Protein backbone atom coordinates (compact mmCIF):
# COMPACT_ATOMS: atom_id res chain seq x y z
CA UNK A 1 0.00 0.00 0.00
CA UNK A 2 1.57 3.24 -1.17
CA UNK A 3 1.27 6.61 0.55
CA UNK A 4 -0.03 9.62 -1.29
CA UNK A 5 0.57 13.25 -0.32
CA UNK A 6 -0.82 16.32 -2.06
CA UNK A 7 0.30 19.92 -1.95
CA UNK A 8 -2.13 22.53 -3.22
CA UNK A 9 -1.79 26.18 -4.09
CA UNK A 10 -4.68 27.80 -5.95
CA UNK A 11 -4.34 26.63 -9.57
CA UNK A 12 -1.56 24.07 -9.01
CA UNK A 13 -1.41 20.81 -7.12
CA UNK A 14 1.48 18.43 -6.65
CA UNK A 15 0.91 14.78 -5.78
CA UNK A 16 3.66 12.55 -4.41
CA UNK A 17 3.23 8.79 -4.27
CA UNK A 18 5.69 6.49 -2.54
CA UNK A 19 6.67 4.37 0.42
CA UNK A 20 8.36 4.95 3.77
CA UNK A 21 11.87 3.65 4.31
CA UNK A 22 11.18 1.02 7.00
CA UNK A 23 14.89 0.17 7.21
CA UNK A 24 15.36 3.69 8.58
CA UNK A 25 12.61 3.23 11.24
CA UNK A 26 10.31 5.73 9.55
CA UNK A 27 6.59 6.16 10.29
CA UNK A 28 4.16 4.46 7.97
CA UNK A 29 2.77 7.80 6.73
CA UNK A 30 6.23 9.02 5.68
CA UNK A 31 7.41 9.00 2.04
CA UNK A 32 11.10 8.46 1.36
CA UNK A 33 10.97 6.17 -1.65
CA UNK A 34 9.05 8.17 -4.25
CA UNK A 35 7.63 6.03 -7.02
CA UNK A 36 5.57 8.63 -8.87
CA UNK A 37 4.71 12.31 -8.85
CA UNK A 38 2.11 14.40 -10.66
CA UNK A 39 1.95 18.13 -11.17
CA UNK A 40 -1.45 19.40 -12.14
CA UNK A 41 -1.94 22.97 -13.32
CA UNK A 42 -5.53 23.99 -14.01
CA UNK A 43 -6.40 23.91 -17.75
CA UNK A 44 -2.98 22.46 -18.61
CA UNK A 45 -1.89 18.91 -19.44
CA UNK A 46 -0.86 16.74 -16.48
CA UNK A 47 2.89 16.63 -15.86
CA UNK A 48 4.12 13.39 -14.32
CA UNK A 49 7.28 11.39 -14.11
CA UNK A 50 9.73 9.37 -12.09
CA UNK A 51 11.68 10.49 -9.07
CA UNK A 52 14.80 11.24 -11.14
CA UNK A 53 12.75 13.81 -13.08
CA UNK A 54 11.23 15.57 -10.08
CA UNK A 55 14.35 17.24 -8.71
CA UNK A 56 15.60 18.55 -12.11
CA UNK A 57 12.14 19.98 -12.83
CA UNK A 58 11.94 21.62 -9.40
CA UNK A 59 15.43 23.05 -9.88
CA UNK A 60 14.46 24.31 -13.33
CA UNK A 61 11.50 26.21 -11.88
CA UNK A 62 13.57 27.67 -9.04
CA UNK A 63 16.42 28.75 -11.32
CA UNK A 64 13.99 30.18 -13.85
CA UNK A 65 12.16 32.16 -11.15
CA UNK A 66 15.49 33.69 -10.10
CA UNK A 67 16.39 34.50 -13.70
CA UNK A 68 12.96 36.00 -14.24
CA UNK A 69 13.52 38.54 -11.49
CA UNK A 70 17.08 39.37 -12.50
CA UNK A 71 17.15 39.15 -16.30
CA UNK A 72 15.17 40.89 -18.97
CA UNK A 73 15.14 37.75 -21.14
CA UNK A 74 15.12 34.75 -18.81
CA UNK A 75 15.83 31.39 -20.45
CA UNK A 76 16.48 28.05 -18.78
CA UNK A 77 17.50 25.08 -20.92
CA UNK A 78 18.34 21.50 -19.97
CA UNK A 79 18.01 17.98 -21.38
CA UNK A 80 14.67 17.51 -19.63
CA UNK A 81 13.01 20.91 -19.58
CA UNK A 82 13.26 24.32 -21.26
CA UNK A 83 11.56 27.38 -19.85
CA UNK A 84 11.55 30.80 -21.42
CA UNK A 85 9.46 33.91 -21.14
CA UNK A 86 7.26 34.78 -24.12
CA UNK A 87 6.47 38.15 -22.57
CA UNK A 88 5.97 39.69 -19.12
CA UNK A 89 2.99 37.44 -18.38
CA UNK A 90 3.44 34.17 -20.29
CA UNK A 91 6.09 31.51 -19.74
CA UNK A 92 6.69 28.80 -22.28
CA UNK A 93 7.61 25.37 -20.86
CA UNK A 94 8.92 22.58 -23.09
CA UNK A 95 9.06 19.16 -21.43
CA UNK A 96 11.24 16.68 -23.30
CA UNK A 97 10.50 13.00 -22.87
CA UNK A 98 13.36 10.61 -22.13
CA UNK A 99 11.59 8.02 -24.32
CA UNK A 100 12.45 7.99 -28.05
CA UNK A 101 9.89 9.10 -30.66
CA UNK A 102 7.88 11.11 -28.14
CA UNK A 103 7.27 14.72 -29.09
CA UNK A 104 8.09 17.38 -26.49
CA UNK A 105 5.16 18.77 -24.54
CA UNK A 106 4.60 22.52 -24.85
CA UNK A 107 2.82 24.32 -22.04
CA UNK A 108 2.24 28.03 -21.67
CA UNK A 109 1.66 29.22 -18.13
CA UNK A 110 0.91 32.61 -16.62
CA UNK A 111 2.68 34.39 -13.76
CA UNK A 112 0.01 33.22 -11.32
CA UNK A 113 0.39 29.56 -12.36
CA UNK A 114 4.16 29.88 -12.14
CA UNK A 115 4.03 31.25 -8.59
CA UNK A 116 1.42 28.61 -7.60
CA UNK A 117 3.72 25.86 -8.92
CA UNK A 118 6.75 27.24 -7.09
CA UNK A 119 4.72 27.46 -3.90
CA UNK A 120 3.73 23.79 -4.30
CA UNK A 121 7.43 22.90 -4.61
CA UNK A 122 8.17 25.02 -1.51
CA UNK A 123 5.51 23.09 0.42
CA UNK A 124 7.10 19.81 -0.70
CA UNK A 125 10.57 21.01 0.35
CA UNK A 126 9.27 22.03 3.76
CA UNK A 127 7.13 18.96 4.35
CA UNK A 128 8.36 16.72 7.16
CA UNK A 129 6.49 13.76 5.64
CA UNK A 130 8.44 13.62 2.40
CA UNK A 131 12.16 13.15 2.25
CA UNK A 132 13.88 13.80 -1.01
CA UNK A 133 17.56 14.26 -1.65
CA UNK A 134 18.26 17.94 -1.50
CA UNK A 135 20.52 19.41 -4.13
CA UNK A 136 22.58 22.50 -3.61
CA UNK A 137 20.86 23.91 -6.69
CA UNK A 138 17.51 24.25 -4.85
CA UNK A 139 18.49 27.55 -3.34
CA UNK A 140 20.55 28.48 -6.35
CA UNK A 141 20.92 32.17 -6.69
CA UNK A 142 23.05 33.07 -9.71
CA UNK A 143 25.53 35.76 -8.78
CA UNK A 144 26.02 38.69 -11.04
CA UNK A 145 29.24 38.16 -12.87
CA UNK A 146 29.91 41.76 -13.56
CA UNK A 147 31.36 43.97 -10.87
CA UNK A 148 28.47 46.36 -10.41
CA UNK A 149 28.59 49.96 -9.21
CA UNK A 150 26.93 48.83 -5.99
CA UNK A 151 29.81 46.43 -5.31
CA UNK A 152 32.38 49.14 -6.05
CA UNK A 153 30.63 51.35 -3.48
CA UNK A 154 30.73 48.56 -0.88
CA UNK A 155 34.42 47.91 -1.65
CA UNK A 156 35.27 51.60 -1.27
CA UNK A 157 33.33 51.78 2.01
CA UNK A 158 35.43 48.87 3.24
CA UNK A 159 38.88 50.18 2.37
CA UNK A 160 38.40 53.96 2.65
CA UNK A 161 38.54 54.24 6.50
CA UNK A 162 41.80 52.29 6.71
CA UNK A 163 43.25 54.21 3.75
CA UNK A 164 42.38 57.57 5.36
CA UNK A 165 43.86 56.41 8.69
CA UNK A 166 47.18 55.37 7.11
CA UNK A 167 47.34 58.52 4.97
CA UNK A 168 46.70 60.85 7.94
CA UNK A 169 49.33 58.99 10.01
CA UNK A 170 51.93 59.50 7.26
CA UNK A 171 50.95 63.16 6.89
CA UNK A 172 51.17 63.88 10.63
CA UNK A 173 54.46 62.04 11.14
CA UNK A 174 56.04 63.72 8.11
CA UNK A 175 55.29 67.18 9.56
CA UNK A 176 57.32 66.30 12.67
CA UNK A 177 60.41 65.87 10.48
CA UNK A 178 60.52 69.69 10.15
CA UNK A 179 60.51 70.19 13.93
CA UNK A 180 63.06 67.50 14.67
CA UNK A 181 66.71 68.56 14.35
CA UNK A 182 69.06 65.55 14.59
CA UNK A 183 72.20 67.73 15.14
CA UNK A 184 70.64 69.46 18.16
CA UNK A 185 69.53 66.14 19.55
CA UNK A 186 73.07 64.78 19.25
CA UNK A 187 74.48 67.80 21.15
CA UNK A 188 71.93 67.29 23.94
CA UNK A 189 72.97 63.67 24.27
CA UNK A 190 76.63 64.69 24.53
CA UNK A 191 75.82 67.14 27.33
CA UNK A 192 73.93 64.46 29.28
CA UNK A 193 76.62 61.80 28.79
CA UNK A 194 79.93 63.66 28.49
CA UNK A 195 82.78 61.30 27.56
Amino acid at each position, binding site marked *: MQNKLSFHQSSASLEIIGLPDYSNNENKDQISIISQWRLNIVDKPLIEGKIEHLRPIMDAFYIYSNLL*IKNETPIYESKLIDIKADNLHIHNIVLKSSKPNVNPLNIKISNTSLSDTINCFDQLNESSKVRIKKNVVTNYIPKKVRFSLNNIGKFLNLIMPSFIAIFSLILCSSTFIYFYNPVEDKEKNELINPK
Partner: protein
Amino acid sequence: MSKYLYPYIREILKSKEDIEENSVIWNNFNMRFIELIKERFNIDSMRVKKLLNQAENDEIIIKSLLILSFCISKEGYQKLKNFLYDF
Protein backbone atom coordinates in the same frame (compact mmCIF):
# COMPACT_ATOMS: atom_id res chain seq x y z
CA MET B 1 3.45 38.49 5.74
CA SER B 2 3.27 37.85 1.99
CA LYS B 3 1.65 34.47 2.80
CA TYR B 4 -1.45 36.28 4.05
CA LEU B 5 -1.33 38.73 1.16
CA TYR B 6 -0.85 35.98 -1.45
CA PRO B 7 -4.52 35.82 -2.55
CA TYR B 8 -4.51 39.58 -3.15
CA ILE B 9 -1.12 39.52 -4.91
CA ARG B 10 -2.38 36.69 -7.09
CA GLU B 11 -5.54 38.58 -7.99
CA ILE B 12 -3.54 41.68 -8.97
CA LEU B 13 -1.25 39.61 -11.21
CA LYS B 14 -4.26 37.82 -12.69
CA SER B 15 -6.01 41.11 -13.36
CA LYS B 16 -2.97 42.32 -15.32
CA GLU B 17 -2.92 39.06 -17.31
CA ASP B 18 -6.60 39.49 -18.29
CA ILE B 19 -6.46 43.26 -18.56
CA GLU B 20 -9.21 43.41 -21.18
CA GLU B 21 -11.66 41.41 -19.05
CA ASN B 22 -10.75 42.55 -15.57
CA SER B 23 -8.72 45.72 -15.38
CA VAL B 24 -10.29 47.19 -12.22
CA ILE B 25 -8.01 45.49 -9.67
CA TRP B 26 -4.84 46.27 -11.60
CA ASN B 27 -5.84 49.91 -12.18
CA ASN B 28 -6.76 50.40 -8.51
CA PHE B 29 -3.49 48.85 -7.39
CA ASN B 30 -1.48 50.94 -9.86
CA MET B 31 -3.20 54.14 -8.72
CA ARG B 32 -2.57 53.37 -5.04
CA PHE B 33 1.04 52.43 -5.81
CA ILE B 34 1.61 55.78 -7.52
CA GLU B 35 -0.09 57.64 -4.64
CA LEU B 36 2.21 55.98 -2.12
CA ILE B 37 5.30 56.67 -4.21
CA LYS B 38 4.33 60.35 -4.49
CA GLU B 39 3.76 60.54 -0.72
CA ARG B 40 6.95 58.83 0.40
CA PHE B 41 9.61 59.17 -2.30
CA ASN B 42 11.58 62.03 -3.76
CA ILE B 43 9.62 62.63 -6.95
CA ASP B 44 12.42 64.77 -8.44
CA SER B 45 14.63 61.70 -8.78
CA MET B 46 14.81 60.20 -12.28
CA ARG B 47 14.34 56.65 -10.93
CA VAL B 48 11.22 57.66 -9.03
CA LYS B 49 9.90 59.44 -12.11
CA LYS B 50 10.31 56.15 -13.98
CA LEU B 51 8.29 54.40 -11.27
CA LEU B 52 5.54 56.96 -11.63
CA ASN B 53 5.36 56.68 -15.39
CA GLN B 54 2.43 54.33 -16.04
CA ALA B 55 3.77 53.41 -19.46
CA GLU B 56 7.06 52.14 -18.00
CA ASN B 57 6.30 50.92 -14.48
CA ASP B 58 4.49 47.68 -15.42
CA GLU B 59 7.64 45.57 -15.40
CA ILE B 60 8.92 46.72 -12.02
CA ILE B 61 5.48 46.32 -10.40
CA ILE B 62 5.00 42.82 -11.85
CA LYS B 63 8.52 41.79 -10.77
CA SER B 64 7.95 43.16 -7.26
CA LEU B 65 4.67 41.27 -6.98
CA LEU B 66 6.31 38.10 -8.31
CA ILE B 67 9.11 38.39 -5.73
CA LEU B 68 6.50 38.57 -2.96
CA SER B 69 4.51 35.68 -4.41
CA PHE B 70 7.65 33.47 -4.57
CA CYS B 71 8.39 34.14 -0.89
CA ILE B 72 5.34 32.85 0.98
CA SER B 73 6.98 29.71 2.35
CA LYS B 74 8.56 29.32 5.80
CA GLU B 75 11.93 30.11 4.27
CA GLY B 76 10.37 33.06 2.46
CA TYR B 77 12.27 35.66 4.49
CA GLN B 78 15.64 34.27 3.37
CA LYS B 79 14.41 33.97 -0.22
CA LEU B 80 13.16 37.55 -0.14
CA LYS B 81 16.53 38.75 1.15
CA ASN B 82 18.34 36.89 -1.65
CA PHE B 83 16.00 38.32 -4.28
CA LEU B 84 16.35 41.87 -2.97
CA TYR B 85 20.15 41.71 -2.78
CA ASP B 86 20.30 40.93 -6.50
CA PHE B 87 17.28 42.91 -7.71
